[in-house]
C-alpha cells in the first residue's frame, strides 16, 4: 500500500473546500446564488406570461394567482420580467467582472513581474482610473460609447480593472522573489512560462476572493446604470430599469419596485457571503481582518 493511501493525502484545494463547507454563512450564500441563478435561467421558461406582452387593461394589478408579483404600468407580468431582467443583469455583471479580471490580472502580472518602468507606467495609469468615482467613470465611458448592454459591460469592466491590477501586482511581488521562481529562472524558463506556470497559480488566492466580491458590486453598479437609463435598453427588461419605472407608480403599485430590488439584494448578499467564505477558507489567518 502506498504512503499516500495510508495517510489520505489532503490537497490544498481539498483543505480550502473543507474549510469553506464549515462556514454556515458561506453555504447560505452559495444557496442564495444557486437559487437566484436557477430562477433567472429557468424561471422565465416556467412562468406562463409574455414579458413583452403589453395589455393596458391589466395595468398595475396587484399580486394574484395569475400574476404572482402583479403587473406593471403596461400590464406586463412583473415576475417574468424581473426573472428575465435578472438574467440580463447577472449576465452583464458576470461578463464585466470576467473582463476586469482578465485585463486587471494581466496588467498586474506585467507590472509586478517586470517592475521599474513597466510597473510605474501601468500603476500610475491605474491610479488615475482609480481616482475616479466608480459610477461617474462608468457614466462617462457609457456617454462616449452610447448606452446598451455591451457598453455597460465594457464600462463596468474598465472601472473594476484597477482593483484587480493592484491586487494581482501585490501578490505577484510577494511570490516573485521565492525560491521556486528563482529555480525556474535558473533553469532558463522563459518569462512568459514563469509568469503563467509558477507565479500566477501561487498569486491566485486574493484574486479569487476579489472576483466573488466584485460580482456583488458589479450587480449593484449595473443596476445603478440601468436605473439612470444608461444600461440595458428597453424593451429588454433589466432590474435597475424596472425599479426606475416602478418608482413612478410606487404609491399605487409598490410591487413593481419591491420585487426587482429584493432580487438584486439577494444576489449581492449571496456573492458577498461566498466571497467572505472563500477568503476565510483560502487563508484562515485573514479571518476577521478584512471585514466580518
Amino acid at each position, binding site marked *: 500500500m502506498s504512503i499516500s493511501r495510508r495517510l489520505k493525502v489532503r490537497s490544498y484545494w481539498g483543505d480550502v473546500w473543507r474549510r469553506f463547507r464549515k462556514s454556515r454563512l458561506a453555504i447560505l450564500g452559495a444557496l442564495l446564488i444557486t437559487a437566484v441563478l436557477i430562477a433567472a435561467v429557468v424561471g422565465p421558461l416556467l412562468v406562463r406570461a409574455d414579458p413583452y406582452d403589453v395589455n393596458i387593461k391589466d395595468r398595475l394589478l396587484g399580486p394574484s394567482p395569475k400574476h404572482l408579483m402583479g403587473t406593471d404600468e403596461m400590464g406586463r407580468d412583473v415576475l417574468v420580467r424581473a426573472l428575465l431582467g435578472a438574467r440580463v443583469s447577472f449576465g452583464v455583471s458576470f461578463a464585466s467582472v470576467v473582463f476586469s479580471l482578465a485585463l486587471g490580472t494581466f496588467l498586474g502580472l506585467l507590472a509586478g513581474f517586470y517592475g521599474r518602468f513597466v510597473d510605474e507606467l501601468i500603476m500610475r495609469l491605474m491610479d*488615475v482610473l482609480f*481616482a475616479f468615482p466608480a459610477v461617474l467613470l462608468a457614466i462617462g465611458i457609457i456617454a462616449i460609447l452610447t448606452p446598451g448592454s455591451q457598453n455597460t459591460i465594457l464600462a463596468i469592466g474598465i472601472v473594476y480593472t484597477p482593483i484587480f491590477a493592484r491586487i494581482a501586482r501585490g501578490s505577484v511581488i510577494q511570490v516573485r522573489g521565492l525560491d521556486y521562481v528563482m529555480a525556474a529562472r535558473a533553469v532558463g524558463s522563459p518569462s512568459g512560462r514563469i509568469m503563467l506556470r509558477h507565479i500566477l497559480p501561487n498569486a491566485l488566492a486574493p484574486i479569487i476572493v476579489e472576483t466573488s466580491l466584485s460580482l456583488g458590486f458589479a450587480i*449593484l453598479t449595473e443596476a*445603478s446604470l440601468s436605473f439612470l437609463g444608461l444600461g440595458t435598453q428597453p424593451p429588454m427588461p433589466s432590474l435597475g430599469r424596472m425599479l426606475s419605472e416602478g418608482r413612478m407608480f410606487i404609491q399605487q403599485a409598490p410591487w413593481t*419596485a419591491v420585487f426587482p430590488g429584493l432580487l438584486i439584494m439577494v444576489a449581492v448578499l449571496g456573492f458577498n457571503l461566498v466571497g467572505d467564505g472563500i477568503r476565510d477558507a483560502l487563508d484562515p489567518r485573514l479571518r476577521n*481582518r478584512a471585514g466580518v
Partner: protein
Amino acid sequence: MQAYVVKRLATMVLVVLGISFAVFLVAHLIPGDPARILLGIHADRQQIDEIRRQLGLDRPLLVQYGYWISRALHGDLGRSVLTGEQVTSALAARLPVTCSLALGALLIALVIALPAGIVAAIRPNSWYGALITVASQIGVAIPDFWLGIMLILACSLTLGWLPSFGYVSIRESVGEWVRHLILPAMSIGWISGSIVTRFVRSAVLEVLGEDYVCVARAKGLRERVVILRHTVRNALITIVTVVGLQLASLLSGVVVIEVVFALPGLGRLAYDAVTRRDYPMLQGAVLTVALAFAVINLLVDLLYVYIDPRVKY
C-alpha cells in the same frame, strides 16, 4: 515627515493632472457636436463653423487642453454650452447640497457603525453580535436607490413624515434643510454604516487580541476603560482610513441618490451634463468630485500621524 508630505503632494498633483486630462478627453470623445446642439438641427454649415471657432473646438486637442487647464487654474472653467451659466458658479451652487448630503450620510453611518461594530467585536458569540453581523451583511447588499425608494414609500407617501424630494438651503430654514436631507442621507448612510461596521468590528477584534489589552485587564482596569482607552483608541487608525474612504465615496457616489430625491447636487449636475452633452459642465463637475476624492485621501494619510504617533514617514 515633511519630505513625505511633499512627495505625497507631488504624486497628488500628477494624478490630478492625469484626471484632468482624462476628463478633458472623455468630454471630447462623447459623440454629438455641442455647436450643433446649441444651434439646433436647422443650422447651416457656416453658423456651425462660426460657433465651433468661438468655442475653440476647431483647434488641435492638446492646444484646447492647454487653454482649458490654464483657465481652470485661474478659476475659470468656462460656461455651460446650454444655459450660458458660469461653470464655477454652478459648481459653487451645487457643492453645498452634495456636501450636506455626504456629511449627513457619514454622520448616520458613524452613529450606526461605531457602537454596532464595537459591540459586535466584544460580544462576538452573543445573539446581538450575530444580529449585527447579519444586518451589516444585508446592508452592504442593498442597492442605495432601492432603499431610497422604499424610504420614500414608507416615510413620505404612507406616513407623510418627511418630504420625498427637493432641497432647502440651510440659510432659508435649518429645520427644512434637515427634513429634506434625512431620507437621502439615510439611504446611503445605512449602506455606508454597514461597511464601516464590518471594519470597526474586525479592527477592534484584532486589537482585543493584543498583549497590552491583556495587561490592561490584568491591572484590574474597568472594562469600559479597557475597551475605550486601550482598544478603540488603537483600532482608530483602521477606522479612520475606512471612514475617509467612505466620505470620499459618499461625495462621489451620490449621483443616483440625487436623481432619486431630485436633489440639485454635483452628481445630478454631472448626470444632466452627460445626458445633454454639456462638455464644460461635465468637466467641471467631474473634476471637482475627483479633486475632492484626492484631497480627502491625502488628509486621511496625514491624519495617521496625529492618531498614531508611531507612524513615521
